[in-house]
């Protein structure tokens, strides 16, 4: 598998001379680079571990809990706080469930004695 040219990225970001970037542009930059990283990393995953790959990606995609925590966090009551609470519960099921089931699967993969 070809190596990702990480070195080439080092000099790239934020060379603009004092002009503030649109957050969307920053987001797209991060997004595109992350897709490339994902592409190369995932092709390196051995097919034997594709099920754990699925459960672990499922667990980490629940990082949207970050958005849920912010919604559930304010002191005063609001409809958003309820939405946040529901999302925290849903994401927590995934985070705990995803990591635990991955752990269970990986613990079973043993080498020949």
């Amino acid at each position, binding site marked *: 598998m070809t190596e990702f040219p990480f070195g080439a990225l080092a000099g790239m970001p934020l060379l603009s001379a004092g002009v503030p970037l649109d957050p969307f542009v920053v987001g797209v930059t991060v997004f595109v680079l992350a897709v490339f990283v*994902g592409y190369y990393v995932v092709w390196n995953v051995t097919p034997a571990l594709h099920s754990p790959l699925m459960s672990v990606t499922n667990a980490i995609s629940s990082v949207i809990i970050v958005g849920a925590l912010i919604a559930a966090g304010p002191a005063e009551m609001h409809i958003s706080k309820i939405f946040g609470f529901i*999302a925290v519960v*849903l994401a927590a099921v995934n985070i705990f469930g995803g990591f635990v089931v991955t752990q269970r699967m990986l613990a079973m*993969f043993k080498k020949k004695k």
Partner: protein
Amino acid sequence: MTDNLAALCYLAASVCFILALRGLSSPVTARRGNAFGITGMTLAIATTLASPGVLAFEFILAGLAIGGSIGTVLARKIKMTALPQLIAAFHSLVGLAAVFVAAAAFYTPEAYGIGSPGAIRAASLVEMGLGTAIGAVTFTGSIVAFGKLQGLVTSNPLVFPGQHAINATLGALLVAAIIYLCLNQSPGVFWFVVAISLVLGVLMIVPIGGADMPVVISMLNSYSGWAACGIGFTLTNNLLIVTGALVGSSGAILSYVMCKGMNRSFVSVILGGFGGETAGPGQAAGDRTVKTGGADDAAFIMRNAGSIIVIPGYGFAVAQAQHALREMCAILKAQGVKVRYAIHPVAGRMPGHMNVLLAEAKVAYDEVFELEDINREFAQTDVAFVIGANDVVNPAAKTDSASPIFGMPVLDAEDARTVLFCKRSLASGYAGVDNPLFYRDNTMMLFGDAKKMCENIVKALG
């Protein structure tokens, strides 16, 4: 915690997630990878809890406790054969969580610094609309996939006239609704977007048959990632964007691998209608005869073999035959027979499912080989033991250009000196195609339940 410090912590969490996936390149490093994943998640949650906007913790702690205990119990209790259903159910939760986070951002945009109610930045609304739509599609789509995998609804493709036209119309309506949402910012339109997406999710998955489930579940995995990405853009949170992109590309790659394993194009899978109870191309099976045998014959052949390659399929998992099979192989190995396992990319109901089931039965992973690594070995092998698999050893995929599975990569089981084919009947497989391997001179059919057969062979060997 300052914004800069928080951003750096999120960056560290992103790196942890990348390392979590990187660890899966080998079973040796995989457990460390999972630890990285847990570290990253803990860091992400702790950073968010330390942010200035989070002041009240009752809801958060209650949510974490409720969700965490449900998730942990589910993950500990689930049978490994039911893993695909569990994953589908988990995907649906990510999708629904994305919808609720988007709703929260829609009602209190100031908490996320993207405007005020009724005056949210247009770019954020587009991203929010997309995140919501993908999340809602993932939610209902995964529920349908769960129902099909769990057997709650038929796994046959459900097709009706005008299906694609309806989906296309709904898709266009969805785009229009998101545009309208940007213009008028009313809650009604927001929930309209959610509603259309929920319906679209159902309609997208119902026409897809059971045989294509590995693709569907990978695809939904991918969607759950893109939903997280959409929310990340809305909240301008790089951690969510990075993680969503990682998960999204991971699911897309798995979908591609699964499609290639079946020689199907992604588009034809999405359009659906493949597999199920449709009759295969009607070759008259009347005058062809099969050789049948029992456990004693199989035991005799295997005991006198020098090498065996086991080809397990989903039927073997359904019969819960893992442990009986391993016991059988242990006896054979003790008698000096070389035993290996060959796994087809689409064996089982999700990518890598069969590897997990074998690992659960304590089969060492270095005895388990992928199709391209073992296919040339069949010619030098005495016995190919096909158990609960069918389409993945169908030689018609190589020779019969009229076959629906023509071009699909298959395991060359027929090259082995003897093929022992353990199966309940001569019925066709998931793809609804007859298998010429049944009728070959070097094939012996072992009719019966996979688990019973293995147990009987164990008795005959002992």
